[in-house]
């Protein structure tokens, strides 16, 4: 493991923190925050791969002729734009599900919901 790979190590650290929040916390809103952190980690993994040293943002200046300007790779940026927008759509859907769960069960804590369900069966 070398420190040249710091960008991957950072993304993976964020990813593991997000996953930890999702699987260890009982509060459903907290789980959605963890899911968002997980998503940002994946976005970082892609965006750091698109960076070129000495490159600039992929916007062509008006006076550019040919290839003398070095740009960072635009493809990861495009893919991650889609991911962010889809991410907020899933967040909105998840949060509205939590609101419905709160209305039906009176709580947004996972272990209490499971307990209420088990009481209903047994």
């Amino acid at each position, binding site marked *: 493991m070398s420190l040249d790979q710091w960008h991957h190590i950072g993304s993976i650290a964020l990813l593991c923190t997000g996953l930890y929040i999702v699987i260890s916390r*009982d509060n459903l809103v907290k789980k959605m925050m963890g899911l968002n952190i997980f998503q940002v980690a994946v976005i970082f993994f892609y965006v750091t791969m698109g960076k070129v040293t000495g490159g600039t943002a992929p*916007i062509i200046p008006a006076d550019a002729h040919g290839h003398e300007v070095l740009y960072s790779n635009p493809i990861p940026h495009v893919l991650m734009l889609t991911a962010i927008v889809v991410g907020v759509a899933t967040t909105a859907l998840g949060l509205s599900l939590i609101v419905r769960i709160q209305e039906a069960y009176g709580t947004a804590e996972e272990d209490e919901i499971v307990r209420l369900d088990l009481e209903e069966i047994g």
Partner: protein
Amino acid sequence: MPIEALLFVLLVVLALAIAHMRDLFAAAMLFSIFSLLSAGMFTLMDAVDVAFTEAAVGAGISTVLILGTLALTSNEERNGPFRLTPLLVCLGLGATLIYGTRDLPVYGDPGAVVHHHVAPEYIEGSHNIHIPNVVTTVLASYRGYDTFGETTVVFTAGLGVLLLLGGAARRRDPEEEAAPQATSEVTS
């Protein structure tokens, strides 16, 4: 190491603070700061389009949605027991992933394979059709169907939210709604 590495440490500290916080309102605010800081880092990494989308959507809309949910649910997270298994799972996953990324290119390597596939073509094409922003060209033209699929997903999600929350006013007092039905059954 560049400044981004230091900012990454700050991001991880913020994420850990969110995991630790029991006050969900404070956690939501930290989450907003987390998104804003990551937007700044995207600017440093030349991804300006991703940066302003993240600033608008992550720090703005997501935080507002979370705050709205907190207003309808509870503001405080209950203190749960400490569990060892999730921690071990995450550490194991992290170690495996770091082992798996060891032979990937280093940060900013201009010779990396990703930069020599279709990216030069896209930049060249964007120059030829006189659209200055290459990301716009790829998003709307080269990968237009991707964007179409994305809008479909957003539409479906919006429809789902409307269906889930649409009848909220009717559900508020189910007794009042059930009462007239019962009387009508009796009269018939």
